[in-house]
């Protein structure tokens, strides 16, 4: 039975726990993605994005909790759910020895499409994604950006309700990334697709209609990027100093200012522009010789992450990298 929430939310995740042996990757995760929107799953490497992606794409089985996709239970209706999903993986899932057309036909056959219907769909999506003139070329001859477009065409061939994308712009240069985003916006506007993508890039997350912020396998924030930034209700004072850690200690001891340090940058929170300016004057007067630059800044999604997760984004990525080593 499809309830009203499931109609509004194309994907609903409730109390999902996932363990890799003794390591808990998802800790009772609950979130939802709205229908017809571009939704982002933002978190540093190792936050649990990939695990959630594996669950949503049916590559992994649910251990605890529930997930519904288009009103269907992932636990009970995996086969029907697969028909409703278009998946774009982080690594290119194309056979480079085959032509674009052959890759698309191969995909069509996997989704039960054939004959004139399949050919029409190939024509339609290859035109929409701008690869219709490259159908006869082997994929290995295409640029990274074009390969990504072919992958999206491939994922859309069976007309899925939801397009799931795992770090889709990974390894692409900024121009191609921009083009890809334009394509995604067009897909959302013209084809009414629900697009859900995972990313660890702030500038990419900023373009989503809504975001779920994830840290250590739990949700630490939801909302539109602007809403989340505005909800912080803070203005930032950013300081660059060669001896950032020592300066941060002095700020704490002498001015009773609590700050966070990342590399040579110090970040201070204040409630308004006026108080920020006053703080800058005070810090410059006392520690001017130790400062390379100081100024006011609007919070970013990274600041939202710091505020919600309670630690720096880079710290988490470094911790994950070290763990992998």
């Amino acid at each position, binding site marked *: 039975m499809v309830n009203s929430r499931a109609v509004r939310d194309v994907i609903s995740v409730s109390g999902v726990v996932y363990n890799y042996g003794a390591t808990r990757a998802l800790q009772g995760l609950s979130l939802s993605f709205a229908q017809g929107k571009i939704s982002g799953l933002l978190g540093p490497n190792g936050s649990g994005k990939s695990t959630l992606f594996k669950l949503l794409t049916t590559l992994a*089985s649910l251990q605890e909790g529930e997930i519904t996709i288009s009103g269907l239970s992932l636990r009970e209706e995996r086969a029907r759910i*697969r028909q409703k999903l278009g998946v774009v*993986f982080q690594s290119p*899932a194309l*056979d480079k020895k*085959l032509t674009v057309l052959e890759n698309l036909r*191969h*995909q069509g*056959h*996997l989704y039960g499409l054939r004959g004139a219907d399949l050919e029409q769909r190939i024509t339609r999506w290859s035109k929409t994604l701008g690869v219709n003139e490259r159908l006869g070329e082997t994929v290995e001859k295409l640029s990274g950006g074009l390969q990504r477009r072919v992958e999206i065409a491939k994922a859309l061939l069976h007309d899925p309700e939801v397009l799931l994308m795992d770090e889709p712009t990974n390894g692409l240069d900024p121009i191609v990334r921009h083009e890809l985003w334009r394509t995604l916006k067009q897909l959302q506007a013209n084809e009414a697709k629900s697009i859900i993508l995972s990313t660890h890039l702030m500038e990419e997350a900023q373009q989503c209609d809504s975001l779920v912020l994830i840290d250590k396998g739990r949700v630490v924030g939801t909302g539109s990027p602007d809403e989340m930034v505005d909800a912080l209700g803070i203005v930032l004072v950013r300081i660059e100093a060669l001896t950032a850690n020592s300066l941060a200690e002095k700020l704490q001891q002498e001015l009773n200012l609590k700050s966070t340090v990342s590399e040579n940058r110090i970040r201070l929170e204040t409630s308004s522009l006026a108080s920020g300016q006053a703080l800058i004057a005070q810090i410059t007067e006392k520690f001017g010789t130790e400062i390379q630059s100081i100024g006011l800044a609007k919070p970013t999604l990274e600041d939202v992450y710091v505020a919600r997760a309670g630690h720096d984004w880079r710290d988490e990525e470094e911790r994950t990298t070290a763990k992998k080593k």
Partner: protein
Amino acid sequence: MSTQVLQHNLMATYTLWWREIVRFLRQRTRIIGAFGSPVMFWLLIGSGVGHSFNSGATTESVSYIRYFYPGTMLMIVLFTAIFATISIIEDRQVGFLQGVLVAPVSRASIAWGKILGGATLAIVQALVFLIPARLAGVPMPLEQLPLLLAVLVLLSIGLTALGYIIAWRMESVQGFHAIMNLFLLPLWLLSGALFTLDGAFSWLRWIMQLNPVTYGLQVMRYALDPDQTLTTSYPSIPVCLLITAAGTLLLVALAVWMTRQEKV
């Protein structure tokens, strides 16, 4: 299973099979390696060993190069089938396999597509190797051709399934090669391809008798060269064929079972 679902799954098997064939044909080095290496191996070992040692295989009427012919054909089948499955590791590394696994098709159809693809390549290459048979004095009676085809199909499917099982859990191509040298090469060496069961030490004979490939090769040898199979150490040809069929069935069932496990 409804007709529509069955058709869909068959279509998936077909498209995965087709991909294996096209990929092979587009990789020239694979074609050269697949045909060139075994022929070279056969000529060098067949000629060299035949004149240097007595392997217990040769008689006055059967030269070593003739004895070694079915063994070379088995090598073609084994190596083509096994190498075809290396692509599973590469497909997983680049994400292609995950793309197939999220499609709404049965896991069995995925396993069958891959296995039949590798097996087809192995069968075709083995059949091409029939061309020099007469040069080596292998009689290859035409009435035995159906039996030869049957055993080639069974061995090709079974050995591709074996490669599939090994590749499915492998993280790297290097690891696959290590397993191949440690396990698959002895599987061929101890099948009677290079020396006869009768001429081997008793402990080696035991191992050879436990090797299911031994029985497939015996059928192949019988189909190609009936005069060579006058040995008392093997069961009858129908029993050998049955053992080969049972082994193939078991390996395919295991491959399908592994594909159903969600580890990717």
